[in-house]
């Protein structure tokens, strides 16, 4: 019995060491990004891990810059991502639930078409979307939001996989008791799918913060830096001002750190939704 305990303890120590090692490996570049955002720098190039001289100037610079309206970028992105999150989650969950739990004539056909469409490179359609939005005078944040939501209908695979793991017996029992399919969806399907709704919402929310390609194509034609989203604004900061890019490099890092923090906090808060054993509990209960 003693050796069994010793063995288990050894295994635990080993697992902890492995986990700690991996965690350090993963986090080092991130730590460096934060350190670099505090480093005093006039060469536009950070070559050491530990800064030679600390300064807050980068943060002051990014918030007060006239050339880069940082606060506008944050406001724009927040607006776009919140609307996108709500609408995209609604669309994705509707599609995933329907395809997983309901049976109807064109279900197989829908799955096949979705599969085929998913195989085209996503941003091959950029040029077409650009002209569509331009024609409707929507080369702005509203048009950008529409593009993000428009892509949500085909991103149902993970959510559908989740719904597939929930036993059908629960639905059938409710239908026996006289519930309509709508009631099953609202009172059983949605409450049980909280983890996947969170996952879907998170992915949708993150989208606008990390996309610099679509936002660049749609927003750049206005030429007004105040209408940019954060991703394109920051990316543009490094790439459009070719000669000056070195001057703003550490301010760019500071801006990146500022936006990465709220997103990270959001993740931490929402992690508790990944509760274990949802289906196991529901089926037994």
């Amino acid at each position, binding site marked *: 019995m003693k050796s069994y305990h010793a063995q*288990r303890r050894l*295994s*635990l120590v080993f*697992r902890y060491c492995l*986990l700690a090692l991996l965690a350090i490996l*993963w*986090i080092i*570049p*991130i730590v460096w*990004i934060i350190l*670099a955002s505090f480093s005093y720098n006039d060469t536009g*190039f*950070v*070559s050491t*891990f530990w800064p030679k001289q600390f300064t807050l100037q980068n943060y002051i610079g990014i918030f007060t810059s006239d050339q880069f309206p940082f606060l506008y970028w944050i406001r724009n992105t927040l607006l776009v991502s919140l609307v996108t999150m709500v609408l995209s989650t609604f*669309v994705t969950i*509707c*599609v995933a639930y*329907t395809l997983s739990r*309901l049976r*109807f004539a064109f279900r197989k056909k829908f799955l096949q078409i979705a*599969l085929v469409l*998913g*195989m*085209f*490179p996503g*941003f*091959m*359609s950029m040029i077409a979307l650009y*002209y*569509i939005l331009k024609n409707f005078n929507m080369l702005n944040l509203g048009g950008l939001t529409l*593009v993000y939501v*428009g892509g*949500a*209908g*085909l991103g149902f*695979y993970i959510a559908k*996989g*989740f719904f597939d*793991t929930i036993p059908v017996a629960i639905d059938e029992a409710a239908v026996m008791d006289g519930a*309509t*399919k*709508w009631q099953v969806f609202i009172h059983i399907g949605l409450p049980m799918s909280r*983890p*996947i709704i969170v996952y879907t919402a998170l992915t949708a929310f*993150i989208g606008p913060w*990390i996309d610099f390609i679509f936002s660049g194509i749609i927003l750049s034609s206005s030429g007004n830096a105040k209408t940019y989203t954060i*991703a394109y604004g920051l990316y543009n900061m490094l790439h459009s001002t070719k000669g000056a890019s070195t001057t703003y490099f550490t301010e760019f890092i500071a801006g*990146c750190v500022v*936006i*990465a923090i709220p997103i*990270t906090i959001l*993740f931490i808060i929402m*992690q*508790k939704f*990944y509760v274990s*054993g*949802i*289906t*196991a509990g529901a089926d037994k209960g």
Partner: protein
Amino acid sequence: MFKKHNKVQPPATYREVWSKGDVSFKLSFLLMGFVQLRHKQWAKGIALLGIQIAFWVWFIFSGASALSMLSNLGEIKSKKVVFDQTQGVYLTKLPDNSVLILLFGVLAVILLLAMLGLYIAHLRSMRTLYVQLRDGEHVPTNHENLHALIDERLHSTLLAVPIVLIVAFTILPTVYMISMAFTNYDGKHPIGFSWTGFKAFGNVLTGDLAGTFFPVLGWTLVWAVCATATTFFFGVLLAMLIESKGITHKGFWRTIFVIVYAVPQFVSLLMMAQFLDLQGPLNNILMSIHLISSPINFIGASASPLVARITVIVVNMWIGIPVSMLISTAIIQNLPQDQIEAARIDGANAWQVFRSITFPQILFVMAPSLIQQFIGNINNFNVIYLLTAGYPMNNNYNGAGDTDLLVTWLYNLVFGQTQRYNASAVLGILIFILSAVFSLIAYRRTNAFKEG
């Protein structure tokens, strides 16, 4: 299991509906909605009638001309000066904008097909109504029709908005880009272009772009396999490690990895490029602990192709494993525990449980998303574009570097110096064929599709 292959004879033919139905049926063959209104199915009737009127108004005022212009994409191909006889002056004629003509042509075709589909659905529903009336069955009331939308026809309600979005933002642009591959839309014909058949395909497969296409294709495949396999496998292992018994503060551990994913990719990857630079911190650290004597050129313009490619795959693991860990955690937590409990009681060890129960179950749930990830990696624009921008240079390539994937090359062809729009559309189609072939093979090998 028991699929019906023989079609059930319809209870009434359309000929019968036409000849024996009353006037409202006859009228409904031309104008949808009459028969529903006649039998007090107000909502259905008004909807059909309204859609139809809107369609015809659109068709007469813009649809018809959009369709007719599709045949040659506009008369005037380039700017020219013509003499106007009636006014006796020279006029400058600007080329027709083929981009817009093609776009609205495609839109018109899609709307026409949608209308045709609605008409066929309407014919079916009309026949059902006819049979119900003929056989004295219960005819659904307006209220029952509406109620069905939240019960037995709930799928139509839930899918209505998504389908409209998919058509507008995926199908329309995709069809548009496919048609573009059959034109001569490039830097030489920027405004007015015309249909040229398979000429652009020839350029890519055997012409001046072939020398770039095949090597880039090879690397794209190697990349997609390596990137998908590494992130999936290690993501599952990491999730299992964190979920394993005895590890406390699971949320904390997960968070550390999730941070990497939470940081926007254009930040983490642009900074990673700096981190790995010839004069960057990593080389400095490695040199200061005397692991290397001179800096390694990981991803620079003159790096060795092999080193750059390995670096790209490793950096992708850094970005991709946390995502895959999160997804597998959600799945692991939802796996039925009874099988695992039973196996434990029977004396199976952790590895046996993993190999024979947990991993197959995760694979089963994740199979469709894995195929998606593989296709996603074929199209993984960010990692390459932000990290290496296609470098190291390769002088034998036309507009691409050693780490360029087909999709970043596609981007270069549109937004770079070359402006080969039609060639980029051809590449898009070829990427599609590539993805289709691979997922077909994969789907045949997984059970997920049979169940789903």
